[in-house]
């Protein structure tokens, strides 16, 4: 295919062709990297948790987080069956949090004024405690009683530094955004992380990761920053610790319910992941194995998608309004050449669904997740730009409860795209019916309508995102955890 793409006869505007090549081959390389990852897919063998380990759960709270959510989480922590201690790492200065800890048998640690946000508190709490294994739990994640029984067995290999489990959600049915955001994670927590596990590069997710204390101490504590979880994983791998990924749902948490929160979360991640690529990975390059390196590079370049999407979006309009064409390949030829790749890609997409964590609910065409990812391109682009100019954005926990968003503020990129598209369609039809010379009409038909077809696809995909923004104007009246019954979860 490269032989076909890089034919000299295809280049009509060298600079634009270079940009298009970048976008096209980035896309192809994502597909191929995905396959490389899937090729290593592995599932760890079940190991029974030995008795007698000393285990802790670290739960962090920050000002503004709702008390009622902690009630559920602390209650569930208390019901985790393996003997353990629960610590609430609290800087809310709210007496009710301490009281809640006492009620559910947790130890309240007042940790105020520490730098490094969540990671700072974790590192300080490590000094105050002594348990051999530490589960870092996000406060919205409600653990199942069997959590440690499924995890601790893997630590019998003394080189294993951390065990990560899948992430799943209990509020995904509450809005389009929540459903889409959850769908985006299905493949990652199933075949994706299993592939990373096979490559020896399972990744810490920030929630639900159980660490060996000695491992964390050996790298000077939990990583700090926007992508603290990824940083921690790289440092542990670079220090020679092994990782295990258990593709099981052992807790359920929250996924952003409104588009604004989702965008903020994605901005934080995209900015943070670049930080990892630029700052963390070069340092670790010599101590990582090449398969781990490839895996981290794959993760680190994920958000470049924002740039390539912009290129794809702009080119059809450039051609339809000015006639500039980056590549002079025929539309039909393009379809013919890329169809096999698309067919194989689709086949593999469905094939790997066999390894999803929760097959009964996660199988199928997860179109909400796809549309939401595409709607995120301006966010990814912003993350990329912020990383290039090294602009800092503050670390804030993702909102636990839906935030009321302004429709236009969230939807303007999609609305702008739709508006430009409609004006362009009118322009194309008008000019071709009324002013294009008859003698060039038919011979330009394929190119013009082919380009318009290219421009149509993103517009169709943008429509659900507009709907998600519309839905985000309103906030549900109940908190998502109101309906969770802690006594009946788990054991699936």
């Amino acid at each position, binding site marked *: 295919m490269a032989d076909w793409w890089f034919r000299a006869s295809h280049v009509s505007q060298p600079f634009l062709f270079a940009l298009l090549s970048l976008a096209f081959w980035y896309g192809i390389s994502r597909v191929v990297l995905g396959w490389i990852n899937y090729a290593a897919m592995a599932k760890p063998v079940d190991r029974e948790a030995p008795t007698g380990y000393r285990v802790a759960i670290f739960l962090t709270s920050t000002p503004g987080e709702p008390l009622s959510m902690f009630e559920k989480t602390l209650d569930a922590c208390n019901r985790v069956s393996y003997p353990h201690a629960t610590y609430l790492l609290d800087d809310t200065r709210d007496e009710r949090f301490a009281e809640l800890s006492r009620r559910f048998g947790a130890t309240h640690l007042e940790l105020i004024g520490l730098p490094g946000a969540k990671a700072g508190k974790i590192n300080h709490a490590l000094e105050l405690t002594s348990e051999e294994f530490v589960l870092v739990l996000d406060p919205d994640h409600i653990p199942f009683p069997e959590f440690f029984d499924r995890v601790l067995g893997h630590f019998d290999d003394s080189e294993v530094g951390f065990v990560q489990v899948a992430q799943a959600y209990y509020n995904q049915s509450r809005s389009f955004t929540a459903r889409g955001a959850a769908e985006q994670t299905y493949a990652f927590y199933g075949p994706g992380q299993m592939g990373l596990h096979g490559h020896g590069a399972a990744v810490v997710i920030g929630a639900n990761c159980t660490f060996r204390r000695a491992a964390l101490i050996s790298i000077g504590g939990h990583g700090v920053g926007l992508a603290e979880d990824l940083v921690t994983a790289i440092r542990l791998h670079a220090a020679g610790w092994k990782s295990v990924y258990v593709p099981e749902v052992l807790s359920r948490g929250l996924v952003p319910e409104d588009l604004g929160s989702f965008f903020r979360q994605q901005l934080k991640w995209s900015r943070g992941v670049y930080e990892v690529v630029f700052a963390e990975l070069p340092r670790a390059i010599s101590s990582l194995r090449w398969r781990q390196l490839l895996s981290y590079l794959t993760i680190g370049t994920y958000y470049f998608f924002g740039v390539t999407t912009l290129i794809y979006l702009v080119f059809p309009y450039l051609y339809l309004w000015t006639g500039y064409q980056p590549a002079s390949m*025929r*539309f*039909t*030829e393009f*379809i*013919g050449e890329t*169809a*096999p790749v698309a*067919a*194989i890609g*689709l*086949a593999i997409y*469905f*094939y790997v*669904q*066999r390894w999803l964590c929760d*097959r*009964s609910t996660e*199988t*199928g065409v997860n179109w909400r997740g796809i549309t939401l990812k595409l709607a995120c391109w301006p966010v990814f682009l912003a993350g990329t730009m912020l990383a290039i100019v090294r602009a800092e954005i503050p670390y804030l926990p993702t909102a636990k409860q839906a935030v009321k968003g302004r429709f236009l503020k969230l939807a303007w990129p999609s609305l702008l795209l739709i508006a430009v598209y409609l004006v362009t369609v009118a322009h194309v039809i008008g000019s*071709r*019916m*009324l002013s*294009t*010379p*008859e*003698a*060039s*009409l*038919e*011979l*330009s*038909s*394929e190119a013009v*309508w082919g380009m318009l077809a290219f421009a149509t696809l993103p517009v169709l995909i943008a429509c659900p995102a507009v709907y998600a923004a519309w839905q985000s104007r309103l906030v549900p009246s109940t908190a998502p955890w109101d309906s969770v019954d802690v006594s009946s979860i788990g054991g699936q």
Partner: protein
Amino acid sequence: MRTRNRLMLIVIVIGGALIGSLALTTISSSSEGPVTGAMDRLGSAFGSFEHAMRGRFQGPGRSAGLKWFDGYRNSVERLKRPDGVLLGAFDSGIPGTLDGVVALEHSIGTTFPLVQIYMAWGDRPDEDFPVGLATAISDVGSVPVVTWEPWLSDFANDKHPQIPLRDQRDRHGMAAVASGEYDFYIDVWALGAARFGKPIFVRFGHEMNDPYRYPWGPQNNTNIEFIAAWKHVVDRFRRDGANNVLWVWSPHVAYRYWETYYPGNDYVDWVATGALNFGPIAQWSSWWSFQEIFGQKYPALASFGKPVMVAEFGSLAVGGNRATWYRDALDNITSKYPQVHALLFFNVKNDQTVTYQKVDWKIDGDSAVLRAIRPALSRWAPSNQQAVR
């Protein structure tokens, strides 16, 4: 049960996609891919539709100037025995646009019933039967004349292991064509022509007796081999149902023995030759009139009893009076050369096929030439007669 159904569905989708894509790659390596072929037809059908929509807003357009041609356009028989002279042109804007053809028409005040295009043999998608271009020409009212050049070196050996290696292929290449080695290509093209359905002129292997120009010439092939190749190609087309093709045999009459390349009355519908005056620009040339280039050979060309086509008609500007050249050529052409029934302007900018420097055959901007051509055409060109009425 539902899960099992889903699994079955997934297996079917994967299996189908794999088998489908494998089939696609094997088929597309033997010829042009079926996807591309189908997409080409779809694209040209859409183009036709768009042209028809345009007609609703703006009326019939160019074809209004070709009403007199309606009886010919869909009749192979009438195109074998036309009355008068069918004018036409090749323009260097082709295949991108027919705008240059229309501009020439405007400048000399006529509408061409014929439009010439040049196609090479080979694997590339633009070496397929030109369904889009032929449809576009047909939709604006004309009939395509395809000069079809058997460049055997445009086929790749990895796709066609049975044919000789690229550098050995031209040697007796016409014998190989005659023996069926290139039927994989000829048949696909012929089926494309048959599917197109409307009459189309094919000027195959032109200037086959010129020992310097093309690989299908006498430096690689005997006249016997060329004739065998010609007959084989025509037979394949007839077998494939492409009876809408009119076969135009077009030797280079400045070189000797051209008559010995004639494939026979049953295999030829038209006899053609080029009439280009290069003037003193090339060392083998000097300023020759149309009479000198074409007229002297006309009796021999006419002796085959077929209608005669001047397939490439034009003069450069350097070395003589260009306007006079055109006037002398076009005045009284119907009485001087009564068997000439087609004349195709060679409207090419930056032609470099024969000479080392680029030469410009375009006449659109040469007002003296246009003033010479207009009155001549108004006396005998059918489109102009229609306009007068």
